[in-house]
């Protein structure tokens, strides 16, 4: 398989580049700098944050920021696969909200039947993962077998998922019973070795994602489909199955993120997960993945997600600019970081 995929175009481009640049080794260095774009951006941002408010560089603040990044970060890892394969999923925020709502309803319902809050929480967790996988499967099947554009399929479900949550919650909030909330709370608020649980989960998902993308046949197929679907098909890659699997993976990631989200507030409302899809997509793209697919990096995605929440954190820790301009600052930083890692296409 791999020999068949050696890209003659790339060899050509490489030799042409070597011919025009006399200094050997110049290109890898430049490439490394570009790869480091998001990290450079993050480091600069952290320096700015520390200068503006020394409290920024405290352990507690770092833990706060990383913990709140966990939801978007985990979703972004799944989103990275979908985008690399040439797809997109706009529904993740609504999906997270609906899964959160369903989880809460199921847990409230089974707790008295099972008589044990721990068992109820476990049931809720399983439900979250199953629902995520099922929603992802539905997306994948509609996109591949139904031949509908991913943008349209997930735009449709974006509305559907949120409308159902609003319907179930009657426009208000679905709230976890107190006893359950106390049992479940440590999943968000607890810590192991001084580091909050959500950060560990985020790390585990990121490591698993990086391994899957870079070290397995599945990961290479995903990249191959994203760079040229026709060629991948001719090379006997089961394109439909691989694509469906990327959406299922993303659905499971959304399920995992929701597992961590629900214990935070113990409630889901129609404003839960609003605009998460854009934050997740922004994290992936800021991290150096091409929106047109074909190539991408999990490390970059993780850095991108952290970068986005660091901006909000710095703005909250200072009051040098008008609160009305917060969104503009985020916009400027996204564009600057994208500029730092340009030319990767």
């Amino acid at each position, binding site marked *: 398989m791999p020999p068949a995929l050696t890209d003659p175009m790339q060899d050509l481009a490489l030799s042409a580049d070597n011919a025009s640049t006399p200094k050997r080794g110049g290109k890898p260095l430049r490439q490394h700098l570009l790869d480091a774009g998001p990290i450079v951006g993050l480091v600069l941002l952290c320096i700015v944050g520390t200068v503006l408010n020394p409290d920024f560089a405290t352990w507690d603040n770092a833990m706060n920021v990383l913990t709140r990044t966990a939801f978007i970060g985990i979703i972004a890892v799944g989103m990275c696969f979908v985008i690399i394969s040439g797809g997109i999923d706009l529904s993740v925020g609504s999906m997270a909200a609906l899964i959160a709502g369903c989880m809460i309803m199921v847990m409230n319902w089974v707790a008295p039947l099972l008589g044990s809050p721990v068992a109820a929480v476990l049931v809720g967790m399983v439900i979250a993962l199953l629902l995520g996988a099922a929603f992802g499967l539905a997306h994948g099947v509609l996109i591949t077998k139904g031949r509908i554009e991913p943008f349209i399929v997930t735009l449709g479900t974006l509305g559907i998922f949120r409308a159902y949550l609003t319907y179930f919650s009657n*426009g208000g909030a679905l709230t976890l019973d107190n006893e359950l909330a106390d049992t479940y709370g440590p999943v968000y608020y607890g810590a192991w070795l001084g580091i909050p649980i959500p950060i560990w989960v985020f790390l585990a998902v990121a490591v698993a994602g990086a391994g899957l993308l870079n070290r397995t046949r599945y990961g290479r197929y995903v990249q191959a489909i994203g760079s040229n679907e026709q060629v991948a098909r001719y090379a006997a890659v089961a394109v439909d199955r691989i694509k469906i699997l990327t959406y299922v993976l993303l659905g499971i990631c959304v399920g995992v993120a929701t597992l961590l989200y629900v214990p935070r507030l113990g409630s889901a409302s129609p404003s839960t997960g609003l605009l998460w899809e854009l934050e997740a997509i922004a994290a992936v793209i800021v991290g150096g993945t091409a929106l047109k697919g074909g190539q991408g990096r999990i490390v970059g995605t993780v850095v991108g997600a952290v970068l986005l929440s660091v901006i909000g954190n710095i703005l909250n820790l200072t009051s040098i600019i008008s609160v009305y301009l917060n969104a503009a600052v985020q916009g400027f930083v996204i564009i600057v970081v994208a500029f730092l890692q340009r030319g990767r296409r």
Partner: protein
Amino acid sequence: MNRRLFSAISLAIATLVTAPAFAQNKLVMGVSVPAATHGWTGGVVYWANRTKAELEKQYPGTSIIVKTAGSAAEQANQVQDLQTVNKIDTLVILPFESAPLTKPVAQVKGKGVYVTVVDRGLTDPSAQNAYVAGDNPGFGKVAAEYMAKAMGGKGNVVVLRGIPTVIDNERVDAFNAVMKGHPGIKVLDAKHGNWNRDDAFKVMQDYLTRFKQIDAVWASDDDMAVGVQKAITQAKRSDVKLVLGGAGSKGYIKKVMDGDPVVTADVTYSPSMIADAMKLTAEARVTGKAMPGTTIIPSVLITKDNASKYYVPDSPF
């Protein structure tokens, strides 16, 4: 000439159609409100539907159509549809936003529909027959006065604001105006939590990182108060002695009722104002009495003494 004739005929038809309807007091009322996207609007939808049932029973023959809209543009279309398709003669509308809905509402009013605007006034007041609203400056003022008293006139306050809108500005301005009279109280900062639990959680976490001594939080909304309280619990901070929400959700009124040590009060800005507007309008239309041009529903302080009066367990909000 042709056009004038046409308009004369259509006017005659309109009078023929609407005049008998008035004689029999058969009201066709359209109610247009924003969709239930957060707790407060969820309450609006609940009260609108509940009042529809009440009024249809009270005034037999009356039909009331409740529509919800997800955006200002959708609401504008809806208002037109209500007039052309449902042939309403009365419109009660809680506009998504003031400016974009002024023209569509004015058009409908121009066709003889009686218009009551709720909560968010139109930019051109001549587009409405009556205006029913909550008291936003009062909301900020009542909150600030209570907090100043509860804090004994000194201490540090942080403020969470809503979505940047006129409503939010009026509340915060009134709050700050009262606080100016209490030099012992320092308002440390005011950031937008967008009336959203998650955003409020993040903003409060960062306030707690930034300020070592916070005596009270004006969360200015019960949804935001949920996020604020979670953040305080997580940070294990005991310096915050008072969290004041607002709008009067059932959960927070219950807390006040049960004597919660931190949530000792709430300030009303009830979504049931849509119900008041519908009732006032229906009464004015059926009996033919004039409705006051402006009705302000005051923001009231809820404490342990009067909480049970405002507690509606059935409401989703």
